[in-house]
């Protein structure tokens, strides 16, 4: 019945954990082929945190789900490239072997806590299921561990909460439960897909801090997906900026904030609400609309919205190149990368 898998020791901090190579996820729809992820490379070491930032529809969720192996090739979906987690190719595994990764190796926190818990199941059951399945815990042991997990994510009166239904908890509390659920089997990699978008502003910071704190303390690697650069500032080691299914800039988070090289990243930075803004300032959204993933613009995908576009941008699709200093990689896909300011205050 229950497989007893010893919670394998975590790969040593800094060893390569995740390698994504030329990953493409194409959905075949009546409208045509939607290239939701279009040639993405990622590397993540154990214990490292990576932010993925991009506006709505840029393919962040599809990327996260493809990395996890929740989206797989099928009649309407084609996936090419590779996702290697801890040495095994996620998309080459049998579905059974893949399910064994989910929980103990890789786990996900979803966007909307209102819908990611089963309304007819007790809070505690959401936690005991993976514990019993992957760790082979008995009923009692699983129930005790569930209460510990709820305590760990900062839920008051955890024993009482475990016996309640999801609708009896607030949004913030529910997202804590979802996080506890993802942490249950102590994964090496946590993918948090916009974990705070659906929450009140006041709760957002608490949840992000909780995630940063827990992954740091447990030495867990994390991919933190957000449409808001502000959310990943100070919480991630590195960042990848996504546009139209591609990573258009990738570097250390501090380096991006100090000097973005891609015009889209610059625009994203400018759209972060500042604490100094008067209340109720209208967000400075980037003008224009995201590219159509069925028929992206010719040349550079950002061209229709880019203030620096010229003829070359129209003709040639820019590729990611390293513009950084030796030892400090800073990749951007742009024909006319922004200059680094004379004085970099890093």
């Amino acid at each position, binding site marked *: 019945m229950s497989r007893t898998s010893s919670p394998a020791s975590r790969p040593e901090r800094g060893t390569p954990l995740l390698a994504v190579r030329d990953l493409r996820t194409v959905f075949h729809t009546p409208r045509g082929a939607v290239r939701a992820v279009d040639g993405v490379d990622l590397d993540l070491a154990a214990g490292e945190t990576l932010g993925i930032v991009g506006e709505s529809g840029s393919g962040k969720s599809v990327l996260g789900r493809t990395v*996890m192996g*929740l989206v797989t090739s099928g009649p309407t979906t084609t996936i090419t490239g590779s996702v290697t987690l801890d040495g095994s190719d996620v998309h080459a595994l049998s579905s059974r072997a893949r*399910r*064994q*990764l*989910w*929980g*103990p190796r890789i*786990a*996900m926190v*979803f*966007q*909307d806590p209102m*819908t*990611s*818990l*089963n*309304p*007819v*199941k007790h809070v505690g059951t959401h936690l005991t*299921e*993976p514990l019993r*399945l*992957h760790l082979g815990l008995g009923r009692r042991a699983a129930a005790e561990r569930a209460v510990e997990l709820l305590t760990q994510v900062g839920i008051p009166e955890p024993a009482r909460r475990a016996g309640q*239904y999801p*609708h009896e908890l607030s949004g913030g509390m529910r997202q804590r439960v*979802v996080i506890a*659920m*993802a942490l*249950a089997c102590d994964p090496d990699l946590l993918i948090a897909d916009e974990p705070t978008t659906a929450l009140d502003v006041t709760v957002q910071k608490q949840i992000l801090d909780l995630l940063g704190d827990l992954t740091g303390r447990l030495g867990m690697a994390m991919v933190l997906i957000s449409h808001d650069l502000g959310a990943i500032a100070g919480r991630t080691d590195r960042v990848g900026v996504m546009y139209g299914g591609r990573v258009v800039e990738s570097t250390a988070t501090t380096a991006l904030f100090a000097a973005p090289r891609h015009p889209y990243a610059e625009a994203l930075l400018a759209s972060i609400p500042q604490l100094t803004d008067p209340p109720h300032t209208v967000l400075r959204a980037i003008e224009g609309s995201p590219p159509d993933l069925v028929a992206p613009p010719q040349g550079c995908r950002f061209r229709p919205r880019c203030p620096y576009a010229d003829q070359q941008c129209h003709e040639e699709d820019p590729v990611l190149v390293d513009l950084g200093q030796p030892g400090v990689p800073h990749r951007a896909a742009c024909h006319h990368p922004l200059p680094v300011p004379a004085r970099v205050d890093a």
Partner: protein
Amino acid sequence: MRKVLTTLAELVLVLLLVSFGVFLLVALIPGDPAVAILGDGFPPEAYAALRAELGLDRPLLVRYGDWLLGVLSGDLGSSIIPPQTDVLDRILAALPVSLQLAGMGLAMAIVLAVPLAMWSASKPGGVVDRIIGASMFGILSVPAFLIGLLLVLVFVNELGWFPRAQWVRIGADPIGNLHHAFLPALVIALSELALFTRILRNDLVTTLNEDFILAARAKGMHPVRILVGDALRPSSFSVVTLLGISVGRLVGSTVIVEYLFALPGMGTLVVNAANQGDFPMVQGAVLVVATIYVLVNAGIDLSYGYLDPRTRRAHAA
């Protein structure tokens, strides 16, 4: 508990209304029972005397009050057609047959519908889904009596696998009874099956697109376990509602099946009584069927609290 009490109070009210409705309906059916009894060419005095004897000369409301008092004390009156048997006795003889047919038929339908719907929904638009969908549509489009007729011809007349027209009470001979009831129950099951499968399949497909299913998958749970453990319960509202309606409908309307298989059930009882203008019998039978309908659906109502904990709160305050 509170919910149960308010439901009970509502129930009493509804049943009272139902009884009045039944009474009114039968009283308003065109055709004069006295004429039906006397036949053609009767003397006017005999007609008046018979109407008085049947109580038909009194005002409607008085007759209703009388009848209701009788009903409350367990007396449904007696048939006006000789031999003037007790209505309740006749109903008590016919009801078990109908209940058993409806119960067995619905149980068979559900037992088949749940796995079929899950199989269909696990891959919407896939080969299995389309085959099952087409078969269910096929079953729905063939009238029940044709299916029944076919089954009788093949399995009773040709193959002789099932007995013909010797209904035995379940208490007297359980095996023989089940043997006899199987085919008629199957006919009932088939048409309900198609409906149940379609409805449940559609609701399952909707549920399976929910985030919490993705979250359950992301925990590494087996797809079948997700289907049964996570998706089924939140998807079962419509089918449970439909089930409640079916119970009530079937108890009184399995006439065709009863006729095909010569079963002495409620459908036969009501139809015969109606043809003979036997209004106490019709009133009593329809009242019993309607009461069962109301009770079953009250039970269904209470089950929503189990199916979806969110609906419990609405009644807790």
